[in-house]
């Protein structure tokens, strides 16, 4: 039977199953093959915080969405074109997102009376006609897998477990994905259990062959490679890119990297990644708590290291006091906050942009801290380097605001040339800087940057003491003098404000130059906003777009840009935190669009919002 092959320009797939079904692995593998094939792609893993919620229940559903295309794309996609539902819970949790006419692949083996009852289905929706608006492919994935693995020397449980590879094989056939990488991956992953490796590979191939032969699928799809900018690419997640950016910052600054960290979702992968790269002289210190993590990083910075701490959610709150100490002792420190849904524990695996005001103001006293936010997973690399640049040059803690969506999401990354990375090298002070040529003034400032000198222990003749008590300008001696305190507060603020002269201006994207409405954003909303802007423009809307990478200080031209449009729209995954800052500072009547669902915005949703604002002109 020759099957029809249809060309598509883009597809959104969602794998959904129980936490134990291996959906993240399945998604990762499909992503890797898709990246190898040369499509542009964007991913959205979505999993529960519980390690293993009760099997077959709604809280236990884990999913992985992948958007891939023959052109450059900006988001993991709004709604899937195909949903793979490994059990009734996965179906129930995801069917609401599936548009009419989409493909639905259901593992009918799991639609037992008991499993249906667990999620409140009185009867199987596969059989009662309630799925009529979708193209349902009822496939007994589990039993097909077990049957394909008859004759293998593995337990029935292990055979059943391979059903995700069967599903992956089927989808790989359906979308013409290469298979060699997955086969090699399985050989590597199960190198110590060759029987399991063989079985998984057999299941994967059986899934492929099933697609090829079954009548349930009459069409397969081709999505040509995307025409991306020339270069060498790899697929990368935000957390991995961020870790690599920190390593690059260490190499480029010639400062040894010291990470003090306490495990917390979704930031832990940065600790895991950095701990693998000791050959770069990186010290990773898993501290007893969040406070010790940042404390050790600051202690290392005092000793001349590139001090970094990584955290999320309530961990940021615990670090606040030490960040304040770094502000007043004017030592470089990078505080990575992978934002997650709060307050308190909130929803640890879900994304949010709700720590902006915490980063900005969440300390006692006047304690300004520069804030940098990456826009996409691969941009986490550059943002980490930029955070390090500011920290080292200005001797200040810097908050790097990633989030759960960037951390776990992935996209193709065009690798930078190492010799084009910025030089972050720093000169420690080694000579007295007092006018008498003998004394060392730890708080004598560089007239340009207002940064203080950095003399590290081990430097003869520059022995000095720093601390959290207010310091006299220049000498750094303890001082309670009212005028000195006022001066020091202003100097510390002035130093941070002055960074505005050392960052790029806010760039506006307005192809025709005649838009009257500007949409702005910061951090991970870049993809959905830019995708929405494309849609609005495609349907004739005039819209300008600008995206903030630096939240503190803001680019020097921010006020000018905001004031040159009739309307400024700002979508945020919070209740309007950047809007509050911009309104207060520039008296511009920002139109906020806020949703705090623990999920990224959808492009279609934002396109509608943009259109509404344009139409209201």
């Amino acid at each position, binding site marked *: 039977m020759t099957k029809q092959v249809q060309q598509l320009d883009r597809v959104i797939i969602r794998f959904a199953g129980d936490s134990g079904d291996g959906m993240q692995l399945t998604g990762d593998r499909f992503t890797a093959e898709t990246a190898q094939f040369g499509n542009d792609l964007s991913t959205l893993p979505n999993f529960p915080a519980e390690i293993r919620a009760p099997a077959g229940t709604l809280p236990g559903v884990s999913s992985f969405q992948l958007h891939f295309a023959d052109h450059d794309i900006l988001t993991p996609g709004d709604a899937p074109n195909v949903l793979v539902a490994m059990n009734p819970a996965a179906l129930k949790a995801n069917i609401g997102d599936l548009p009419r006419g989409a493909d639905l692949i259901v593992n009918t083996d799991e639609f037992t009376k008991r499993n249906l009852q667990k999620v409140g289905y009185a009867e199987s929706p596969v059989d009662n006609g309630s799925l009529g608006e979708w193209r349902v492919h009822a496939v007994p994935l589990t039993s097909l897998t077990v049957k394909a693995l008859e004759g293998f020397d593995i337990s029935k449980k292990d055979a059943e477990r391979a059903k995700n590879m069967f599903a992956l094989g089927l989808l790989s056939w359906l979308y013409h994905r290469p298979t060699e990488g997955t086969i090699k991956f399985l050989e590597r992953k199960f190198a110590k259990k060759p029987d399991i490796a063989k079985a998984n590979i057999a299941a994967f191939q059986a899934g492929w062959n099933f697609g090829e032969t079954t009548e349930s699928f009459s069409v397969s799809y081709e999505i040509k490679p995307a025409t991306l900018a020339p270069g060498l690419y790899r697929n990368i997640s935000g957390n991995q890119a961020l870790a*690599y950016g920190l390593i690059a910052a260490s190499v480029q600054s010639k400062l040894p990297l010291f990470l003090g960290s306490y495990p917390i979702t979704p930031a832990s992968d940065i600790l895991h990644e950095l701990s693998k790269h000791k050959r770069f002289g990186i010290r990773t210190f898993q501290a007893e708590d969040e406070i*010790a993590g940042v404390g050790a990083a600051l202690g*290392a910075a005092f000793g001349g290291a590139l001090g970094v701490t990584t955290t999320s959610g309530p961990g940021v709150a615990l670090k606040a006091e030490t960040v304040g100490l770094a502000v007043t002792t004017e030592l470089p420190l990078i505080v990575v906050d992978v934002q997650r849904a709060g307050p308190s524990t909130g929803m640890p695996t879900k994304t949010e942009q709700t720590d902006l005001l915490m980063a900005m103001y969440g300390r006692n006293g006047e304690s300004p801290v520069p804030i940098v936010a990456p826009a996409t997973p691969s941009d986490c690399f550059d943002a980490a380097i930029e955070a390090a640049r500011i920290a080292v040059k200005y001797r200040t803690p810097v908050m790097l605001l990633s989030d759960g969506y960037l951390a776990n999401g992935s996209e193709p990354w065009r690798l930078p040339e190492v010799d084009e*990375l910025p030089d972050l090298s720093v000169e420690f002070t080694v000579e007295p800087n007092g006018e008498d040529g003998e004394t060392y003034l730890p708080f004598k400032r560089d007239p340009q940057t207002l940064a203080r000198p950095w003399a590290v222990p081990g430097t003869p003749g520059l022995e000095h003491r720093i601390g959290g008590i207010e310091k006299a300008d220049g000498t750094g001696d303890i001082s309670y003098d009212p005028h000195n305190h006022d001066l020091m507060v202003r100097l510390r603020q002035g130093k941070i404000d002055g960074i505005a002269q050392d960052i790029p201006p806010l760039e506006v994207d307005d192809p025709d130059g005649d838009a009257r409405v500007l949409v702005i954003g910061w951090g991970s909303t870049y993809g959905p906003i830019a995708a929405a802007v494309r849609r609005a423009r495609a349907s004739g809307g005039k819209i300008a777009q600008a995206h903030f990478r630096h939240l503190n200080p803001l680019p020097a031209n921010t006020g000018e840009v905001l004031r040159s449009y009739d309307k400024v729209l700002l979508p945020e995954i919070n209740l309007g935190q950047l809007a509050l800052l911009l309104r207060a500072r520039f008296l511009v009547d920002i139109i906020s669009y806020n949703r705090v669902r623990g999920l990224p915005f959808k492009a279609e949703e934002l396109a509608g919002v943009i259109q509404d604002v344009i139409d209201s002109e």
Partner: protein
Amino acid sequence: MSDIATNGHTAEPIGRGTGLTLIPRATEKQTLKDFKSDQEVRWCPGCGDYAILSAVQGFLPELGLKRENIVFVSGIGCSSRFPYYLNTYGFHSIHGRAPAIATGLAASRPDLSVWVITGDGDALSIGGNHLIHALRRNVNLNILLFNNRIYGLTKGQYSPTSEVGKITKSTPMGSLDKPFNPISLALGAEASFVARTLDSDRKHLTSVLREAAAHRGTSLVEIYQNCNIFNDNAFEALKDPEVRDDITLRLEHGQPIVSGSKAVRRGPDGRLAVVDRAGVPEDEIVVHDAHDPDPSVAFALSRLDEPAFEHVPIGIFRSVDRPAYDTLMSRQLHEAVSDQGAGRLGDLLRGGDTWRVG
């Protein structure tokens, strides 16, 4: 500075007795004056901190280390002002966190002699967690715990070492919570070096500091320190010439544990007991073994001053070999480099599955 990145110490010493070998030596003879900073000392007149400061300033030249390679890190409290008065590098940090900050510094700079100055409130209340973890981790640093059994800087509330029933500003009817015994706590955390000394006994204080500095790993030195404003004479029994010799049990490695009139022996139930020295045959007096890998006898010794000040062991309870965290950490970096070669950024970025476009 060039070797900080990988710390080229391949044959690093491990454990007791070699805590100073990685720290550069001074070429010229130093004096007490070299270690005085130009800052005015601002403790209350009569404070025990003065005696400790003077003893430390007098003792540091003896170490013969380059002054610039010595760092004092403190938390918050009266004692934590200490670094300002020493002409070394210093970091006056935040309440309770000095052990964490010092850990980051000492772990990344094995060429530094790092000292933590802390008090009973700083180390045992707000910083209790950091203290026990520093002790178990065994980074090469020295923690001097000034114990005056009261909160001084916040003006006289009871502390985690105050005796039960302490009447203070915050406990007008007496404190309710049982105090920590810092020595027991440190031994429970399996600290590799644990000692107790007294602010007024400069000779003993100095001898303990000498051993602490030489110890490779984390040393904890509890220093009984008098707060003459809020808790005066808390340790008077140990200073009063009439009684001190009878209640002070001197711990010296290899020596029988005795005071003027008392001796420590094992009772019929196997427990340590303090008995009249007169009636005990010399060979039944417990001989102190500070290097015993088993901390249980040291722990039993730490319990002998219950009830307080009937008989108080002073000296080094424990000093054992245990790999220092910074040594192990440096070693892993070395192993990584020798196994895989020094890291190259370009190779790292190009690692994993890549594909070329155009």
